[in-house]
């Protein structure tokens, strides 16, 4: 089932003429024939959930916009920064018009006249391509004044971030877009009530918005028929790590992880043994190999003790030193913590320091318990989800592979005695 990746490798798809030949921009006619609230209803019926990480139902989010407050804004989150995730990049670079089409339909549904695409700082190339696509769309009348006679005026702008992971968090993204320091804002008020420039704002991930044209074209029910009971539709999964064919794959939600790893991605490299996998990007807890038959959908992964997150499946074979992996991830979160709240700013650094000590052989047994306690002191006590995300890999790696830690400490202590 290909919804997002249909024609994705077609040459020249980024060109508007070729995109149109594939049926591009047709959903707008359908959308404009309906009332805005009817379009929201279609998306609600489809069960489309936010593909950025939180999985919040998109249609519901749109219906939360503060009533009768204008102007409203749309900010498309293209700050794809979650380690392991590279799905949006492929959509942006290969099929920019799909996103523009999705944005126009969404802006019509939400009565928005100004939209922004917030790219992560490194996506210069994607942003350049998008600028070109926007120009093409303007020329064809898919953007600008009175689009296709619908009465909708829409201007779409691209904006490059300055290289901060935290700006993928929606309120930090808004701060950054406004030219402020990339730090999360206090919620409530939620962006749907007071977002960009204090006005009601819709923030959706690239992949979410890209699903909108198909839903409008084919109807919400048809989309809702795909996937599991609560996880509807298809999902792009970025498979990375020790697999033979790493890459982005579009799956129907609910597909067992085993099929993704062993069928789509060709199995483990050198036919090694699977040790662990992180199902939804570095922020979610890792799972051990025995969970490989879990369905890849929001509910099943949660039941298994992890999350679907941004859809980045990181696969590790039996050669992996889990402590080293955790140390590297801890470094990432320390480096990316914005520093606004105390537990995240101090805790991420402290955990990295302790993990480093364990990894280099200066650790002692009690430190693993101390790490767990630090995780507890951070969990759900930080200002924004980055703190919890930083806890994810540390706490789960200890939970899943405590013996790896203990053995490392023991072995290195043994080495010390030997020398």
């Amino acid at each position: 089932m290909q919804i997002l990746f249909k024609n994705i490798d077609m040459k020249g798809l980024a060109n508007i003429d070729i995109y149109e030949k594939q049926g591009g921009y047709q959903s707008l006619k359908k959308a404009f024939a309906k009332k805005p609230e009817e379009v929201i209803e279609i998306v609600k019926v489809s069960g489309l959930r936010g593909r950025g990480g939180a999985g919040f139902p998109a249609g519901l989010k749109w219906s939360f916009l503060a009533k009768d407050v204008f102007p409203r804004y749309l900010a498309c989150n293209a700050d794809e920064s979650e380690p392991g995730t590279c799905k949006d990049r492929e959509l942006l670079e290969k099929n920019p018009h799909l996103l523009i089409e999705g944005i126009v339909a969404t802006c019509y549904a939400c009565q928005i006249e100004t939209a922004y695409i917030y790219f992560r700082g490194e996506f210069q190339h994607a942003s350049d391509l998008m600028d070109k696509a926007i120009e093409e769309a303007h020329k064809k009348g898919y953007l600008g004044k009175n689009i296709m006679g619908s009465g909708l005026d829409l201007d779409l702008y691209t904006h490059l971030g300055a290289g901060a992971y935290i700006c993928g968090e929606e309120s930090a993204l808004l701060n950054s877009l406004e030219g402020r320091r990339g730090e999360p804002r206090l919620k409530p008020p939620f962006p749907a009530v007071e977002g960009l420039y204090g006005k009601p704002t819709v923030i959706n991930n690239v992949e979410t918005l890209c699903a909108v044209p198909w839903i409008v074209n084919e109807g919400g029910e048809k989309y809702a028929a795909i996937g599991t009971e609560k996880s509807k539709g298809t999902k792009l999964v970025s498979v990375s790590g020790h697999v033979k064919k790493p890459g982005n794959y579009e799956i129907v939600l609910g597909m067992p992880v085993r099929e993704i790893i062993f069928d789509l991605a060709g199995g483990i490299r050198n036919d090694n043994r699977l040790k662990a996998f992180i199902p939804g990007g570095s922020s979610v807890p890792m799972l051990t190999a025995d969970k490989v038959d879990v369905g890849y959908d929001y509910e099943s992964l949660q039941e298994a003790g992890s999350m679907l997150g941004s859809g980045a499946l990181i696969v590790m074979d039996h050669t992996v030193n889990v402590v080293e992996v955790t140390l590297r991830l801890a470094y990432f979160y320390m480096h990316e913590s914005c520093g606004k709240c105390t537990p995240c700013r101090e805790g991420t650094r402290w955990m990295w320091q302790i993990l480093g000590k364990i990894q280099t052989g200066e650790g002692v047994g009690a430190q693993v318990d101390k790490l767990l306690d630090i995780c507890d002191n951070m969990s759900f006590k930080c200002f924004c989800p980055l703190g919890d995300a930083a806890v994810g890999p540390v706490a789960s790696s200890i939970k899943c592979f405590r013996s790896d830690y203990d053995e490392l400490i023991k072995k290195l202590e043994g080495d010390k005695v030997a020398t």
Partner: protein
Amino acid sequence: MSKDNNINITINDQPVSVPKGTLVVEAAKQIGIEIPVFCYHEKLGPFGCCRMCLVEVEKMPKLTTACTQTVMPDMVVKTESPKVVKAQQGVLEFTLLNHPLDCPVCDKGGECPLQDNTFKFGPGTTRMEFDRANQDKATPLSPVITIDRERCIACQRCTRYSDIIEQEQALVMLNRGFNNEVNTFNDEPYTTKYSGNVIDICPVGALTNTEFRFKARTWDLNNSATLCAHCGCNCNMTLASRTNKFMRVETRPNDLVDDGWICDKARFGYDFIESDNRIIEAISLVGGERKAVNTFDAAIQVAESLKKIADEHGPKSIGFIGSPFGTNEELYLYHKLFRLELRTNNLDHKTYSDTPGLPVDHYDFLNIETANLVLLIGSDSAEELPILDLRIKKAVTHKGVKLAILNDQKTDLDKVADLSLKYDVGLDGIALAALANSLATELGIPAVEVSSSDESLTGIAVDQMKKMSELIRTATKVCVVYNPASLTGNSIFMLKHLLGVINKIPTMECGAIPAAPFTNSVGAMDMGILPDYYPGGVSISDSDKVQKIWGDSAFLDAKGFSALEMIDKAESGELKALLVYRSNPVVDFPEGKRIEAVLKNLPLLVVHDMMKTETSALADIVLPSNGPGYDEGTTTNIGGRVQYRKRGLNTTNSPDWKIISKMINSLSEKPIEYLTSFSVTEELSKMVPGYNEISKKSIKKEGKTREKIEYINGSTPEIQKIDSSGKGLRLRIATQLFSKDKVLDASSPLAHHFLPPTLCLHESDALKLDLFNGDQAVLTANGIDVGVTVEVSDRCNPGAVVVPRVSDDQGLLRLASSGSVSWVEVRKG
């Protein structure tokens, strides 16, 4: 808000009822439950970054921050549950993880929220086994603030202060994560007018007062709850000393006056109280030689000499030039000395026209926030009354109050104003009349006679003035803030006429704040230091009232001379003796050079002051005045609030009130011995209309607003003809908050704020004069030359110049004339 709108919650099983929207942390405070905080500050609002205030709320899955959570009906909050205690200890462990252990030498020690919270809520031990982060221990953020970045816990109070309160965004967070730091853009010094407040709100010892660093332990300080004696705001402050040496100044929040903030002049501008330039003993010129004499003997000598001259040449031959910097008690006693004993009305304290009383309510600072339009006239509040400026900014940006400005120069507040109009320098009277007329016609009030050719002279387009009157007309509560000292000629009467007109708009609530930039100008007028009014706004011609209050013999026939008239009379020889109290006419009055010559030749010049001045140098007798830091008494701020200025340092010198009462008693048939300054307060509360409720008890802590002073309605004023005889350009001297004078001398920690002598010249005039930015120019008037550097700007309309008063040495006032408008010639130099 009525009780019905309250929300009931329980905290630690204690019920509390609070208004909707109250934060949990504030609700807890009301029932004596302390929820520890670092980043939360009531003036800055919720932020939630330090995570210190985590509490458990029933039915909420996670702990929540009490400083961001508003109360919800039937909420059940726990602040001491095991979960909360674990979280508090965890957060404190994180906070202290890299905090240096230098409490023994830290300036904040003893008054440090981090110490206190650790003591009460901390884990007791640390599990940190790594070296603590090292940073530079003392980085100057400015000449007056030093930052110790090791101690910073990144609560962002200071940066939010700079953003929300002073609205400069001068102090910001740089870098991210563990490496974030409080800093300025491009490492420029942090030199706003209100920078020092960040020292007070810093919950650790990161932001320190450079002057106070390592000078004393806070618990060894002797703290005096006093008032600032600089501008007319009278902000509340704590003056700390140790072994009778000045140590530091801090805020002492009073929402009714300062909203919890003081400006940098208040915080760093008190070195003068230990200046070598202080007058600490009486000096008498005996046989051409200056000799130190006993203060009381000198005082008696002064009283007797004045009496002798008054007896010989009539009471008109003596005069008193007082000061808007004295306390009510001191000024009241001087009124008694001159009116009741020496029987003259020659009293004044200013060089501009003003009268007590307003045709509208006398508003206080809170009214600025509750009005829907603030009309600012002739006031550059940032330079003149900085804390008033903060209040206006707060009202405009956070309370939705509109701001309309009518001024002859551009000011900082223009950028937040809804409408800002500039009239030509010296044409304030016509501009005010035009505005009043635009409102008066439909109210059936007779218009002031202004010819349309005159009106076109103001420099304000007719449609713009119309916009201004529309703003006023569509408001329901207008607060007019005006600086009487910036108005020329008799424009103050036109302003009061305008107030009366606004007040007549149906359903309009209107009040005014007379915002003169001096400590106690309202008090000085209330105490009758005016040639035409007894204390409490009683006209000297109202014999009934004068006699009723002051006794049958108190009424004086002769009208008094104003301060400037006294100088003229001294020049002509009619006036033989002057007592100048805490005033420096040679520098602060127009035509200082002439004044210097006049005073030199005056048969008797007595100066009673705390600092040696250009005027005291000419005096025959000098009496020491204690002044701020050493004196005590009440002052009345521009909002009409009477507060008590407490002594901060001890002195063996006699207080001013004792010296003045010694003079009175030496002449009086019924001497009164006052025991303390409050004995004078008690007496004046009985004698001064409007002050009846003022007492030691009633002004405790927050002070008390004095009752409205009666306004004596005059007839519709007439437009004063503008003196166009002058040559060159009209001169506007602008007040600078930080100017090199007797208060802030060259050694002041604020010296970095001093501007070079500057001339703000409009582009069109600059073209005519062939002057460019950065050129040296010479200003000439009254035979005096003053050198300046040209700054081409649109600070004022063409035809005039704005010259900031940057120092006493500059002699700028010598260029001014005592007429309504001063003219100055400008040439390349």
